[in-house]
């Protein structure tokens, strides 16, 4: 018994030293990106507590095991048995109850932090987020702006109302910590209060098909004054010439998710030099790309499939776009020599 | 009613009548006050009858003759 006590004393010291080292190690190999939202603070403090607990318990088990390996290893040729110890009910109860108390406390802290992260704020600004294969669109209902960049004023509580047009996507900006799926048929919400200005990248975090890896959007957090200037600039834009309007529509509709502008291969035919080109169709016939063909390909994309491509383009652009908008896109394609 | 053949037949008829009656009650409940909880309870009662008298669930934990 005395010998065991000495072992336990040594082990206890080693466990504490091990826990400190492990915690240092974990924090250095798990570098969280710079927290940039009010929500990130709640998440990060809980994260650090978890790291401390992981370090402590990891050290506890590993030190005991390694110590036992060193001290209790059988000498060469020693075929005898170890001590006949069956178990110890008191110990079992102790190491059931203590972890139980810890996890209940963790659950309590988690609930509290969840409340902070999802807490509704006064004067929230609503932004509507739409995800589709494989791009993002942001609408600002108050200002009447549609944008492909998510621009946010620093310090302003934001409520994102998010919808998907096709499959499940997920809204994730690592620096903001929070994440939320966009589900077809649902409107999901996410709250963010940006606390640091700068550029970030929004990344889709739910596998959504071919170009999932590239379903990104730029995010800009601006000082409130700069943000107001951006809003003014966006809303002052009137009456663009058709080709420029077409470029803007193509961007917000995510056409370039499948149709490149520089001739590089993608899921659909490139738009570079498309107008006037002769295309071979899947059935072997050929067609010269003119305005009628382009209009048909937008309204009824599966009518004529160019050889080497799949009939995967959505068929609902006729409902989404007006005639003028389709004409504008065609004008835009014409400019891409 | 015991273990005789006719006795078991008779139990079968009684269970059948009970099940039919419960089904009738289900229907009446549904068209009058339509309570999902009551309907579920009736279904449970019917299931218990079937389990006990038709499926002989007790044979699982009784050492019995054949």
């Amino acid at each position: 018994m005395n010998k065991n006590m000495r072992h336990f004393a040594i082990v206890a010291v080693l466990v504490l030293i091990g826990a400190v080292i492990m915690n240092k190690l974990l924090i250095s190999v798990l570098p969280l990106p710079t927290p940039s939202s009010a929500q990130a603070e709640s998440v990060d403090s809980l994260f650090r507590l978890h790291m401390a607990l992981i370090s402590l318990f990891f050290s506890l088990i590993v030190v005991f095991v390694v110590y036992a390996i060193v001290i209790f290893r059988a000498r060469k040729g020693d075929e005898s048995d170890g001590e006949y110890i069956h178990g110890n009910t008191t110990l079992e109860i102790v190491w059931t109850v203590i972890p139980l108390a810890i996890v209940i406390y963790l659950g309590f802290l988690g609930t509290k932090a969840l409340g902070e992260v999802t807490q509704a704020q006064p004067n929230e600004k609503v932004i509507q987020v739409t995800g589709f294969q494989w791009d993002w669109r942001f609408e600002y209902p108050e200002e009447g702006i549609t944008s492909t960049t998510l621009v946010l004023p620093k310090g302003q509580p934001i409520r994102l109302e998010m919808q998907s047009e096709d499959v499940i996507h997920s809204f994730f900006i690592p620096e903001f910590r929070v994440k939320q799926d966009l589900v077809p048929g649902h409107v999901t919400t996410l709250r963010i209060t940006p606390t640091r200005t700068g550029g970030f990248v929004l990344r889709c975090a739910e596998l959504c098909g071919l170009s999932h890896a590239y379903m990104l959007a730029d995010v800009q957090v601006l000082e409130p004054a700069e943000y107001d200037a951006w809003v003014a600039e966006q809303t002052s834009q009137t009456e663009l010439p058709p080709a420029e309007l077409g470029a803007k529509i193509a961007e917000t509709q995510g056409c370039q998710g499948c149709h490149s502008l520089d001739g590089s291969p993608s899921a659909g035919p490139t738009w570079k030099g498309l107008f006037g080109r002769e295309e071979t169709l899947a059935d072997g016939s050929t067609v010269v790309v003119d305005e009628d063909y382009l209009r048909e390909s937008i309204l009824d994309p599966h009518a004529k499939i160019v050889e080497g491509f799949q009939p995967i383009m959505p068929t609902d652009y006729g409902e989404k776009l007006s005639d003028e908008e389709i004409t504008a896109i065609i004008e835009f394609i014409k400019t891409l020599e | 009613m015991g273990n005789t053949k006719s006795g078991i037949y008779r139990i079968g008829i009684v269970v059948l009548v009970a099940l039919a009656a419960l089904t009738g009650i289900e229907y009446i409940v549904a068209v009058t006050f339509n309570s999902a909880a009551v309907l579920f309870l009736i279904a449970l009662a019917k299931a218990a009858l079937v389990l006990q008298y038709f499926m002989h669930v007790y044979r699982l934990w009784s050492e019995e003759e054949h």
Partner: protein
Amino acid sequence: MSLFSLPAVKGLIAQILGTIAGMALTTVIRALMGLPAWKAEPAWVVGALLGGVAFLFAVGAFDDWLQWMVGKETPLRHGPPPDRPAWTRYFSVDYNHKVIGIQYTVWGLFLLMAGGTFALAFRTELLRSGMQFLGLELFNNFIGLHGIVMIGGILLGVGGMANYLVPLMLGAEDMAFPRLNALGFWFNVPGALLILSSLLVGGWDAGWTGYPPLSARGPIGYQLFFLGVYFIGLSSIVGAVNLLVTILHMRPKGMSLFRMPIFVWGVFATSLIQLTATQLIGLSFLMVLVERTLGMGFFDPGLAGPGKALLEGGGDPILFQHLFWFYSHPAVYIFILPGLAVIGELLPVFARKPLFGYKWVALSSLAIALVGFLVWAHHMFVSGMNPGLRVPFMFATLLVAVPTGVKFFSWVGTIWGGKLHFPTPMLFVLGAISVFLIGGLTGPILGTVPTNMPLHDSYFVVGHFHATMFGGFVFPFFAALYFWYPKVTGRMYNETLGKIHFWLMTPAFWAQTLGQMTVGVMGMRRRIADYDPALGNGMIQAGHVVITIAGFAIAFGVLLMIYNFIRSAEVGKVAGSNPWRSRSPEWQIPSPVPEHSFAAPVTVVGEPYDYGLAGSTYVRMAAAGDD
């Protein structure tokens, strides 16, 4: 002997013919109904289904039951097929649980290596950012295939250990239903072939989770994937029925539940989950299958809106996730409970000391299995499900830590004060403890909703999951393979090669899992073919290099093990009946185990792990000479 008379080959041919017949049937029926005769998708669905069934008939899995249907009785066949070489029994329907156990294990190892190969392929692609050689489509196919093929391989590995060991450890003659046991194995062959052949018809790009709506719109490969999983699920279910009946009813005299070897407890808990939860993954995939084939809109929101909505839409993708995770979370306990039980089984043998707190360890398996049913929605914290479900599922998830902790503390209690020996199986057990520890400890951080938000669907999850799988299944499975190898073959494996395997694989795995967690925290998402090299201040690239190299090191270690096993079966030194001085019943009979394992009925007269108690015995064979 002609190759074509081998039942497995007959099965393969029948599967191909059955597929063609099913396609023809569909085409004829469509023509008769006045529809356009050829439509690829329904033709493939019916063809794949018929092909799988045809395999089972042709291999002979239903032979005896067909006889019973016409009123004939069939005696249980024993031994190798009478007019063929002995090795052919491994390619035939054989009713001996030891043969079936080996069939499971070998087919499982094959699938694990196939799944690993997919991983190496896309790991190499991820070595650098940008696309190198795979292409987006193939990349997405490979991540799904890696996932499901590995899962199939793990299920087969679990089945292999359980089928070989449970009857032997109980001192039972065989499994309760030998014919069902054989059928359970053979389901896996056409099932796995369906999954692998999905690549030929366009593959499927939604990952192994197959979430709709994405899975409801992609290529035909999805249908083969769903059907393949269905076959493997059937195998799980009939296997679980068999194991549960065996454990409950086939124990010899004196073998009370609390005297069973601890491995049997692990299998018991696992079988309870397999029996019940497996139905739900089958159902969820079946629902997507009919949504694609017949337009049944379970998960398609369609034109939902007030009024006529529910006739025209109203489906919900989140329902799929509930049904799917109801199986797929407990599934990880199916994988790890037998593995953790192997740890509990081997530690006493190599520590020469009783298992510390036997009852607590046994019941902790049951507790994990039961709590495991109440935690599925922690995969859905950010899915858009009812937000009110988050907190209860968070608490339930955190509770899993308690019985898992009991296991760890009991393992430490077992080795404390023992006389430890370190042959290869013991090394793998200790490796398993260290790896499962980091896997388990990174669980609560994912189970707590706020910290789950940044980590969900990131590489941190990948790191956590692989640590639990390697610590809970792969390391213990390898330990089991090395440990019972002399019992199965009668010869010892090469100890040096075994140790090289361990010292190669363990540090490599540690580097891999920590590397995955590191890049995950930097913002690396799961399941992406390309990543931003600027993440983590440019350090992410280095992380991926480490992960990839570690992956290849693990693969090399596994190849070394396979070589060791094949070579040692020829030249290994003869092992004798009990090289580890174990008390368990299977070690009290000759190696390799004879056709009828126990020459005489077994009686249990003591506790399983009374190492260090002089003069105690666990089992006694009536014919062994003692009264």
